[in-house]
């Protein structure tokens, strides 16, 4: 019986992916107070770009891991500068509607260009092999995902709490006008945050490609799980995102093992319970 460690590791891998997606989402939400419905669509773009790159330059996984986030960074910056900033003055509903519309357009464009069917991404080399770990043979790639998540999470935490840039970011969130007066280009900072969030989603997309297949429904699938992570962890809380990702990763993984029919509902059930007991999420500040 070595099912339990296998499912535990599966859960960790999915938690890693979930964290990569929801970290960008919660960062943008925490900093700019914009809930980006297009985040998962950008994640999907990352996965598709990666697919195309790996088709053209056979199996250059590391290349696409560098290039795709960069492309998404630029796309994110453009979206913030020319679209989001325009509707900001109309209020939150307009911002939500805009990102929702963008998600819709990106999904349709993806269906148009790449087709409405799953594309498999094969990964070769060491990452595609298996390894002996705690007595079982396990794919290296899933462990790689989890390590990536730890790496990204650590870097983000270091930037936010240990660098000058982090101080500026936190100051801009607290009082953007005062920070602006002190000589910081706050609009540029927000553009950077949004673009960084987009780049993170692209990074997550590249990572997701070989794990799950690349298909037009992948955006909505992960979007809902990432939303649940944010609700459970607390809106805008990075630490909350870590804990909630681990929780939901395991819940998804063992849910399939224990209650195959209910596995989808379990996640929402957890969300409903958290909402009733602590509406602001596990680590969220009281509203």
């Amino acid at each position: 019986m070595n099912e339990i460690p296998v499912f535990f590791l599966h859960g960790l891998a999915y938690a890693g992916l979930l964290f990569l997606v929801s970290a960008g989402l919660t960062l943008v939400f925490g900093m700019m107070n914009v809930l980006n419905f297009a985040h998962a669509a950008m994640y999907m773009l990352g996965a598709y770009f990666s697919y195309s790159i790996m088709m053209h330059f056979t199996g250059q996984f590391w290349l696409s891991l560098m290039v795709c986030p960069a492309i998404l960074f630029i796309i994110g910056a453009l979206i913030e500068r020319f679209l989001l900033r325009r509707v900001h003055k109309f209020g939150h509903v307009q911002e939500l509607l805009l990102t929702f519309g963008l998600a819709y357009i990106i999904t349709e464009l993806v269906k148009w260009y790449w087709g409405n069917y799953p594309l498999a991404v094969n990964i070769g080399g060491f990452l595609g092999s298996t390894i002996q770990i705690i007595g079982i043979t396990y794919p290296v790639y899933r462990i790689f995902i989890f390590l990536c998540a730890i790496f990204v999470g650590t870097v983000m935490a270091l930037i936010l709490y240990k660098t000058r840039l982090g101080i500026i970011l936190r100051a801009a969130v607290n009082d953007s006008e005062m920070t602006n007066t002190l000589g910081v280009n706050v609009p540029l900072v927000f553009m950077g945050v949004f673009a960084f969030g987009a780049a993170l989603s692209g990074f997550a997309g590249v990572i997701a490609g070989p794990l799950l297949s690349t298909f037009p429904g992948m955006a909505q699938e992960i979007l809902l799980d990432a939303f649940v992570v944010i609700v459970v962890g607390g809106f805008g809380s990075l630490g909350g995102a870590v804990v909630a990702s681990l929780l939901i990763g395991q819940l998804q993984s063992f849910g399939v093992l224990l209650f195959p029919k209910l596995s989808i509902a379990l996640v929402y059930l957890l969300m409903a319970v958290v909402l009733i007991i602590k509406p602001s999420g596990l680590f969220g500040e009281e509203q």
Partner: protein
Amino acid sequence: MKQKNTSFIIIALFLAGAFMPLILKQYHLNMLTEIIIFALFAVSYNLLLGYAGLLSFGHAMFFGLGAFMTAVAIIHIPGLALWNAILIGVVTTIIAGFVIGSLLLRHKGAYFALLTLAFNALFYAVATKWHSVTGGDDGLSITRPDLSLGFTSISMASLTHFYYLTLIIVGAAIVFCWYFTHTAMGKTVLLMRENEERMKFLGYNTNISRLLLFTFTGAVAGLAGSFYTLHFQFVSISAISVDMTTAVLLMAFVGGTKTFWGPILGAFVYIILQNYLSNITDRWPLFMGFIFVSMVLFIPGGLSEVIMNIRQRLFGKKDNNGGKSAASEEV
């Protein structure tokens, strides 16, 4: 506003609707029935978005619930009267609206939007997995029961008969929604959006008002869903999917959330575009997406804002609230 004028327009619309089966071909009458049903759905959605300022991404759960309950009731209860089938759909959505509303309405803005989306996804997941009841991916086929009026019974097999039923019942529901916006309750909702603190201070329990509104719009969406099932004599999981929410959001927004009639116009434009564009190109959702985003960017008031502006230019009518936000003209 000019109440008399509006009543006149409503009566004229009903009369025009009554003559439509004489003029239109079967195909177009089919489309018109669909438009009326979706107009009701869009109107109910706009009561949330335009009037209360609540952006919900889960309105399809009520629409779909009404649609599925009607279908399930017709299939499992032999000899069920048409009225009761509709009633079952509406009552279920009232209960669902009340329960979900009391859970979600503690949150506002982005939180609320996100949670409604999650609940819609939950409903969708249940509908997909619960194959024995909902038919899963295959959907459910039904036959429209006859309409019994006590003394006589009218066969609903013909489209014309069903069209008249839709025109009367769904049309009346739309008029009722319009009436609702003029009641004290409707105005409370509107003022709550503008200044909730003050409403609380004046002694209104805003939480209960919001819950009542949410339940009401859910029930109206359920009615629309119920008619959707009866119209197509079929219901599939697409009725309860997030795509359906997207559709109603597009209708309401493209038509204009700042007027009562905007969403009706939006439903009209959406269904017609869907029918004609889908003949020309498979990519029509992409066009709808571009129309939607450019409207968000440039014409937040939707088509009704465009029409109001043109009317103002042509007739020089001064709308005293013209520039102000949503539906304030109704106050």
